[in-house]
């Protein structure tokens, strides 16, 4: 008997008990759906973390001035002005495996010709581009003379370039930042969204001395060399945790903090922030994996149960088929195909629902969910294997019936 004939018999038998067949499939539907969502969420989360690492730079520490808490009151980070450019210099000098870039930040209006745009101004040092692993799409980086002499030069992000210049070439053009003319010497590569979802390309980078003197003004920074943040990159191959502790120790020593007192800065390991996010999506994936395996197991048992019922109900049919010339393998094949059909139809419905649920999770929770064809293949093979595994026992039971007793069965 060929598979087409067996399939036709199976579909007819399943169609006779539509509701029962549908309920039997439910476990497989849920299990396979959960597998699809699980893989989608897992792959999406991993992709997101990868992208963020690419966007942010790897092995990053972010130091912000101001304690996390002071006397129980949480201060706005960056408001304490406890960090200075000299802290960054000290890190670069004392900790060879760390590279630090101090940064000042503020908003400003930028004008080129008739175009104007409101953006972020970053005053920092050339190390910043290294720390952030940020390449130039065009032009050149700052020269030492421009750093020390508060040169009126800037690097612009891709968003700023697009907003001000459209398709024109920004390099060597002069723009006005708070009415001060700056020469654009380079355009930064596109970075995309940050961890917080802000556009990292909406930025203009100027030498830190220039920022202090011309753009952000000393009024915002009471101390001459104070900075809001210091970005630190641990060199490749070093544990960011170790570097983090070295940096913390150095800063505490420089800030003359007593042992036991709180830090007057906040030091965050961005790697950990990202891994925490990854971990939370991994928890969800694990949860889904548990739901999936339980549902698949229950679904499989359900199929076995219904197939056993079906074999009993159809004992006379089995006896008849044997009398008409069905061999053991024909009967085995018939019930196996029926079980597999049941689980595969459930599996396909599960794939459909899983994909729909993935899209829904993606759009309602804002999670990134990847729909991988491998996941569909995997889930369908799962359903197939379950059908064979749990269908085998009832099918064998049917195939082993004695034809006389089967025909006599009431």
């Amino acid at each position, binding site marked *: *008997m060929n598979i087409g*004939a067996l399939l036709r018999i199976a579909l*007819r038998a399943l169609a*006779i008990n539509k509701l029962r067949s549908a309920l039997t499939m439910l476990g497989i539907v849920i299990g396979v759906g959960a597998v699809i969502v699980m893989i989608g969420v897992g792959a999406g989360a991993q992709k997101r973390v990868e992208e963020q690492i690419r966007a942010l730079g790897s092995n990053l520490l972010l130091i912000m001035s101001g304690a996390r808490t002071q006397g129980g009151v949480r201060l706005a980070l960056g408001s304490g002005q406890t960090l200075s450019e000299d802290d960054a210099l000290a890190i670069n000098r004392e900790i060879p495996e760390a590279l630090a870039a101090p940064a000042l930040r503020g908003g400003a209006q930028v004008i080129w010709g008739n175009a104007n745009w409101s953006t972020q101004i970053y005053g920092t040092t050339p190390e910043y581009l290294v720390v952030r692993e940020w390449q130039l799409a065009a032009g050149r980086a700052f020269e030492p003379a421009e750093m020390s002499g508060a040169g009126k030069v800037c690097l612009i992000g891709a968003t700023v370039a697009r907003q001000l210049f459209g398709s024109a070439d920004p390099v060597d053009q002069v723009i006005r930042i708070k009415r001060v003319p700056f020469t654009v010497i380079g355009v930064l590569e596109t970075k995309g969204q940050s961890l917080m979802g802000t556009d990292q390309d909406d930025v203009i980078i100027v030498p830190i001395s220039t920022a202090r003197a011309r753009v952000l003004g000393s009024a915002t920074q009471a101390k001459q060399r104070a900075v809001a943040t210091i970005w630190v990159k641990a060199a490749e191959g070093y544990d960011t945790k170790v570097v983090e502790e070295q940096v913390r120790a150095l800063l505490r020593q420089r800030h003359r903090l007593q042992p036991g007192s709180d830090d007057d800065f906040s030091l965050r390991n961005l790697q950990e922030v990202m891994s925490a996010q990854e971990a939370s999506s991994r928890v969800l994936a694990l949860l889904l994996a548990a739901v999936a395996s339980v549902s698949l197991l229950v679904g499989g048992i359900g199929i076995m149960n219904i197939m056993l019922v079906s074999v009993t109900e159809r004992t*006379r*049919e089995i006896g*008849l*088929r*044997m*009398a*008409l*010339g*069905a*061999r*053991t393998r*024909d009967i085995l094949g018939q019930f196996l195909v029926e079980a597999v059909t049941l689980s595969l139809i459930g599996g396909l419905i599960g794939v459909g629902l899983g994909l729909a649920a993935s899209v829904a999770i993606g759009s309602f929770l804002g999670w990134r969910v990847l729909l991988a064809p491998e996941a569909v293949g995997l889930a369908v093979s799962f359903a197939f294997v379950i059908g064979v595994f749990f269908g085998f026992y009832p099918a064998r039971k049917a195939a082993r019936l*004695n*034809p*006389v007793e089967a*025909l006599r069965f009431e």
Partner: protein
Amino acid sequence: MLIEARELVKIYAMGEAEVRALAGVSADIAAGEFIAVMGPSGSGKSTFMNLLGCLDRQTSGEYLLAGERVSQLGPDRLARVRNRQIGFVFQHFNLLARTPAVENVELPLVYAGVPGKQRRDRAMAMLARVGLAERAHHQPAQLSGGQQQRVAIARALVTEPLLILADEPTGALDSRTSLEIMALFQELNRQGMTVVLVTHENDVARFARRILRFRDGRIVRDEPNAAADAARALRAEAVPA
């Protein structure tokens, strides 16, 4: 000789006790015979039929079907013998529910591996032969008992077997319909088909040309049926053409 049965014994083990369903049955049946098997309930008629039909194996004794010692065959070969050489008709028709008549008739051909188109043609031809060509696409539930049994007979005939075995084929039919079905068997026999059927009713047995009477697992009488000619006459007046 189509069938040679020698001292067939069938013992069922019922826990401690044994049931001797057949206690040494010998019979020869030639091709083209029309035999009625009769006897009281529990006398071993069905057991005998099951052995003839290769559905079961005897405890001892010998059974040759068309010269072949079928009791020595493995299960798959036996299935093949049932498929090609024997046509079964049952008391309760045993048609597949919700399956059109023609597909029921096709079923043995499915197991014989006959391709679909040829299968359909042969099934339709066989339905025509039992007078049900226009009901080919009806499901069993849409057919009368007599019509269902005709479909079952078409199914038994479709592989062109050596013999038809029918265990109480009229047991579930009213007497008028029984006569119609028996007329059909008689017609088939006239065309050369060997028919062995079990019945309790003399009216039914009358159609056969030889009667085997069972009692306590033995054949107690084996005689030609003198009433056969009378039955033919009865059929002519009872069944409209």
